[in-house]
């Protein structure tokens, strides 16, 4: 990752224009070309430096729901249970954490009603209880990491 990569990552965390040729506008700002910028974003996505490029949706504003859920998974079953959980399209993120509750995943559903059905399905598929932590209040959300 070189200086231009870092500047691309930092600039594109602040926003991407909504216009006919947005890459061209950002490339001019960064002192590079449209083709170079597109090629670099492509590479940063392909090599895993970036996990996403595009609109970030607030699912709640569209009637949907985000629910954090946690499970205590026996160490020997981690990969198997992760595969079962991750196979559900509603699972947006899943992290292993250092705690008795060692698997924490986020369900993004189109309606709040779907959450309980999905949690039930996870419990059925794995035989493990799931604790659900729906968001009651959101105080702050803005993840920007300087590259």
């Amino acid at each position, binding site marked *: 990752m070189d200086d231009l990569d870092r500047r691309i*990552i930092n600039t*594109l*965390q602040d*926003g*991407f224009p*909504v*216009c*006919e*040729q*947005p*890459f*061209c506008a950002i490339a001019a700002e960064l002192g590079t070309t449209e083709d170079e910028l*597109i090629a670099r*974003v*492509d590479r940063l*996505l392909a*090599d*895993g*430096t*970036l*996990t*996403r*490029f*595009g*609109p*970030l*949706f*607030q*699912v709640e*504003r*569209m009637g*949907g729901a985000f629910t954090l859920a*946690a499970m205590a998974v026996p160490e020997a079953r981690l990969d198997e249970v*992760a595969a079962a*959980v991750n196979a559900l*399209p509603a*699972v*947006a*993120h899943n*992290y*292993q*954490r*250092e*705690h008795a*509750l060692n698997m924490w995943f986020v369900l*993004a559903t*189109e309606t709040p009603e779907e959450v309980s059905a999905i949690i039930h399905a996870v419990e059925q598929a794995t035989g493990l209880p799931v*604790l659900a*932590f*729906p968001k*009651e*209040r*959101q*105080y*702050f*959300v*803005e*993840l920007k*990491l300087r*590259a």
Partner: protein
Amino acid sequence: MNDTANPGIVAQIDREIVRATQAGLPLVPRPYHAVADVIGVAPELVIARIEAMLRDGRIRRIGVVPNHYALGYIANGMSVWDVDDARVDALGAKVGAQDGVSHCYRRPRRLPQWRYNLFAMVHGRDRAQVEAKLVVVAEVLGDAVRAHDVLYSTRILKKTGLRLGPSA
């Protein structure tokens, strides 16, 4: 198109835009035109609807999401706090405003397994950086906090964006 002209059609177009972009914007010089071609509407309409969704918050922002680990932020702690219910809302906003806190939510307790009602994600290049930020959060919470813990992530098992199903 006027936003209120035909709410049913506008909602359907918005939904198609979400579906066409939830895996990401196309990496081409005219990405919104490419989205318009996929869903079969004019590019000006796609641009107008995306601007409308940015204004009303359905789209938080457009841009990139970096992988924490790839950028060297290898310490990712979910800090959790058992905070007096009467004071958690006032204090949650202050915790969310602290440097290094990326997400801050109130969630239900699940007694007896889980006593914590305030969740704050903290990122750092190492655990010492995270711990230093947590000292500040603890100071903000003061005597309203009864117990706390921090759960470090050790592995990303899955990370994708929103996924809408194919049905309307």
